[in-house]
C-alpha cells in the first residue's frame, strides 16, 4: 500500500464509522421521526443538512469542471442552483411547514381534494428522484473504483450498505444527523485545496477574493489579474474568452437559469427538509442558513474552476504559443497526468508526431491558419473529462496526500447525503402517499413505520440495480428532475398557496400540460426516455435543434412551468371553485400561528 492508499482508507473509513455511529444513536421510533425527524431539528442544523442534501456528486465533482470549460456561461448553474432558495424561502417553505404534514404529494392531494392530483405528484416525484439518485450511485461506484482500488460494483454495494444502515434505521432523523456530518466533511474537502491553490496563484487565501486578485508567477506579481491572465491564455489558443463566453445565447442563459431556480424550489427531497423544523419562523431562517452553507461551496467553485483551467493550460503550454519549445514534451508530463491517462479521462494523441502536446481549439476557423503555420495538426488532448478538475486538483497543485484522501471522502459524502435524501423522498411517497393514502388508509402507525422501512430497502435496491445497469434516462438529470419539478410540482404548490380559487381540475390540467410540453421537447431532442435513435426533430417543419427560440432542452422547465400556470388559470376560470373548507385550509396555511398543533395524520 502506498502512503496515499493508507491515507485514503483511513479518512474514508473514519467518516463511514462516524456515519454508522450516528445511525445507531439516531434511530427512529415513530412515523413522525421516520418521515420528518419528529419536527425537532434546529434551523441551523437543518440548514446544514439541507446543504448536504442539496449538494450532490454533481455539485462537488462536476460543477467546477463545468465552470472551467464554460467560463461565464456556467453562471446559469451558480445562479440557478442558489437563486431557487429565495423562491423556496419566500413562496413555499414556511407555508408547507405550516400545513404540517409529511410529504409533498400529500399537500397537493389535500389542497386539491383529489387522489388523482396526489398520484400525479407521486409519479413526478419518483421519476425525478430516481433519475437523480442513479447519478449519486454512479458517483459512489466511480469514487471507490478510482481511489480505493475496488471494482465499481463493490464500491456501489458498499455505498448501498452504508446508506441502508442509517436510512432504514433512522429514517429522516438518522439522515438529518448524518447529513450534518457529511456537510462538514464535504465543505472541508472542497475549500482546503481551493485555499492552497488560491494562495499559490494569487497570494490571497480566500478563493472568493483570489479569483479577482492579481496573478502571481514565481512568487512575484505579474501586473495582471488572474481572470485577465486566464482570458489571455485561452484566447491565445483559439478558445473563447473565459469571462464572456455565453452558453447558447443570452436568452437561453436567462431561461436556463430560471428553469434551474424553479426546479430547485420544486424538488421534493429539498422541500421535505423544511418539514423537520419546529416552527414556521424556523422554516424561513432555515432556508437562509441552508443557502449560507451552500454559498460557501458555490462561491468557491468559480475560483476552483478558473484556477484549475489556468493550471491545466499552463501545464501543457509551457512557453510562448507557436514557439518550438512552447509545448510540453509528452515524456515530461507530470505524474498526475499519467495517473489520469490510465482512467481514460485524459487522452492524448500525437497528431503531428512531434512528441509534444498541443492543446488548442481546433474548431475555431479563425485560429486554424495560425495553428497550421505552427505545424499543428489538430487538438491533441482528445479527451479532457471535466470531472478531473476537482478530483485531480490537489495533485495538480502538488498538495499533500491527506488532502487528496479528504477530497475522496468529500465526494463520497456529497453523493451519500444526496442519495439518502432522495431515497427518503421516494420511500415516504410509497409508504405514506400510495400505501396509507390510497391503498390501505386504515394501516396502523406501527405497520406504516415498517412499510416505510421496507420501501426504503426496496428503493435502495432499485437505485443500486439502476446504478449497475444505468438506463438511458440516467444521463438526463437536469432535463428530467429539474424539468419535472419546475413544470409540475413548483406551479402546483405555489398556486395552492397563493391562489385561493385554484381548483382540482385546473391544477391537474396544469400539471399534465406542463409535464407533457417539457418531456416532449426533451424527448424530441434526446430520444424518447433517452433511447438512442428515437429523437424526432423535424427541421423541415422548423423544428430543428433548439427550435424554440434557441432554448436548449435542459433549459425548458421554465417554459413548461409557464404552460402549467396558463392552462391552470384558464381551466380553473371555467370550472367550479374549490369547496369552502379548502379555501379555509389555504387561509390557515397563510398564517404561522398554530403550526405546533398541526400534525401529520
Amino acid at each position, binding site marked *: 500500500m502506498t502512503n496515499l492508499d493508507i491515507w485514503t482508507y483511513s479518512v474514508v473509513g473514519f467518516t463511514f464509522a462516524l456515519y454508522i455511529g450516528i445511525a445507531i444513536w439516531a434511530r427512529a421510533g415513530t412515523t413522525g421521526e421516520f418521515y420528518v425527524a419528529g419536527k425537532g431539528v434546529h434551523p441551523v442544523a437543518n440548514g446544514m443538512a439541507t446543504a448536504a442534501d442539496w449538494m450532490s456528486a454533481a455539485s462537488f465533482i462536476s460543477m467546477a469542471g463545468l*465552470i472551467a470549460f464554460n467560463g*461565464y456561461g456556467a*453562471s446559469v448553474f*451558480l*445562479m440557478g442552483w*442558489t*437563486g431557487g*432558495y*429565495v423562491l423556496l*424561502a*419566500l*413562496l413555499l417553505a*414556511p407555508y408547507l411547514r405550516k400545513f404540517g404534514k409529511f410529504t409533498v404529494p400529500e399537500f397537493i392531494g389535500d389542497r386539491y381534494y383529489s387522489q388523482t392530483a396526489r398520484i400525479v405528484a407521486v409519479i413526478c416525484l419518483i421519476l425525478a428522484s430516481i433519475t437523480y439518485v442513479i447519478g449519486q450511485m454512479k458517483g459512489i461506484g466511480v469514487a471507490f473504483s478510482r481511489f480505493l482500488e475496488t471494482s465499481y460494483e463493490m464500491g456501489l454495494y458498499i455505498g448501498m450498505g452504508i446508506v441502508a444502515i442509517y436510512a432504514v434505521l433512522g429514517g429522516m432523523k438518522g439522515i438529518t444527523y448524518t447529513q450534518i456530518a457529511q456537510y462538514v466533511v464535504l465543505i472541508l474537502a472542497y475549500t482546503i485545496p481551493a485555499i492552497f491553490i488560491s494562495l499559490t496563484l494569487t497570494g490571497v487565501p480566500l478563493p*472568493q*477574493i483570489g*479569483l*479577482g*486578485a*492579481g496573478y502571481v508567477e514565481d512568487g512575484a506579481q505579474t501586473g495582471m*489579474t*488572474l*481572470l*485577465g491572465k486566464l482570458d489571455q491564455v485561452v484566447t491565445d489558443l483559439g478558445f473563447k474568452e473565459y*469571462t*464572456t463566453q455565453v452558453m447558447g445565447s*443570452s436568452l437561453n*442563459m*436567462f431561461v436556463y*437559469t*430560471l428553469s434551474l431556480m424553479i426546479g430547485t424550489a420544486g424538488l421534493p427531497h429539498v422541500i421535505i427538509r423544511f418539514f423537520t423544523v419546529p*416552527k*414556521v*419562523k424556523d422554516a*424561513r*431562517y432555515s*432556508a*437562509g442558513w441552508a*443557502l*449560507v452553507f451552500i*454559498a460557501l461551496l*458555490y*462561491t468557491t467553485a*468559480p475560483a476552483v474552476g478558473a484556477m484549475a483551467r489556468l493550471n491545466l493550460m499552463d501545464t501543457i503550454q509551457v512557453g510562448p504559443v507557436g514557439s518550438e519549445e512552447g509545448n510540453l514534451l509528452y515524456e515530461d508530463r507530470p505524474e498526475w497526468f499519467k495517473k489520469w491517462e490510465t482512467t481514460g479521462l485524459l487522452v492524448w494523441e500525437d497528431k503531428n508526431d512531434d512528441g509534444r502536446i498541443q492543446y488548442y481549439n481546433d474548431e475555431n476557423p479563425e485560429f486554424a491558419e495560425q495553428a497550421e503555420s505552427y505545424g499543428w495538426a489538430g487538438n491533441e488532448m482528445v479527451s479532457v473529462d471535466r470531472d478531473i478538475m476537482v478530483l485531480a486538483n490537489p495533485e495538480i497543485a502538488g498538495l499533500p496526500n491527506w488532502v487528496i484522501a479528504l477530497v475522496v471522502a468529500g465526494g463520497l459524502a456529497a453523493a451519500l447525503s444526496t442519495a439518502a435524501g432522495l431515497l427518503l423522498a421516494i420511500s415516504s411517497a410509497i409508504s405514506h402517499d400510495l400505501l396509507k393514502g390510497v391503498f390501505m388508509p386504515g394501516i396502523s402507525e406501527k405497520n406504516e413505520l415498517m412499510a416505510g422501512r421496507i420501501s426504503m430497502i426496496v428503493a435502495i435496491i432499485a437505485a443500486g440495480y439502476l446504478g449497475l445497469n444505468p438506463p438511458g434516462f440516467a444521463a438526463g438529470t437536469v432535463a428530467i428532475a429539474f424539468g419535472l419539478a419546475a413544470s409540475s410540482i413548483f406551479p402546483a404548490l405555489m398556486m395552492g398557496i*397563493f391562489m385561493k380559487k385554484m381548483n382540482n381540475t385546473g391544477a391537474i390540467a396544469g400539471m399534465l400540460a406542463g409535464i407533457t410540453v417539457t418531456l416532449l421537447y426533451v424527448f424530441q431532442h434526446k430520444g424518447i426516455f433517452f433511447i438512442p435513435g428515437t429523437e424526432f426533430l423535424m427541421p423541415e417543419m422548423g423544428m430543428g435543434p433548439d427550435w424554440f427560440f434557441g432554448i436548449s432542452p435542459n433549459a425548458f422547465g421554465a417554459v413548461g412551468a409557464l404552460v402549467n400556470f396558463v392552462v391552470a388559470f384558464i381551466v380553473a376560470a371555467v370550472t367550479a371553485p374549490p369547496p369552502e373548507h379548502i379555501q379555509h385550509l389555504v*387561509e390557515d396555511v*397563510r*398564517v*404561522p*400561528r*398554530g*403550526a*405546533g398543533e398541526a400534525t401529520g395524520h
Partner: protein
Amino acid sequence: MTPENRAAYWKANVRLLVILLIIWFIVSYGLGIILVEPLNSIQLGGYPLGFWFAQQGSIYAFLVLIFIYAAAMNRLDKKFDVDE
C-alpha cells in the same frame, strides 16, 4: 383574528414578497445576464463587474434577501399577532 386583519396581513406579506423578488430578479437576471456586457467594462476587485454579479454577487444578494425576509416576517407576525 378578523377576516379584515387576515387580509391585511396577507397583503403586507405579498407586498414584501414582490419587493424582494424584484431585487432577486435584478441582481441575477438584470445585472448578471441582461446588463452583463456594459457592466463588464467596470472592474470590481479585479473582477469584471457583470461577471462578478453572475458568479459571486448574485449569490450573496440571495442570502441577504432571505434573511431580510425572515426578519421582516417576524415583525409582521408580531404586529398582526399571528406569531407562534
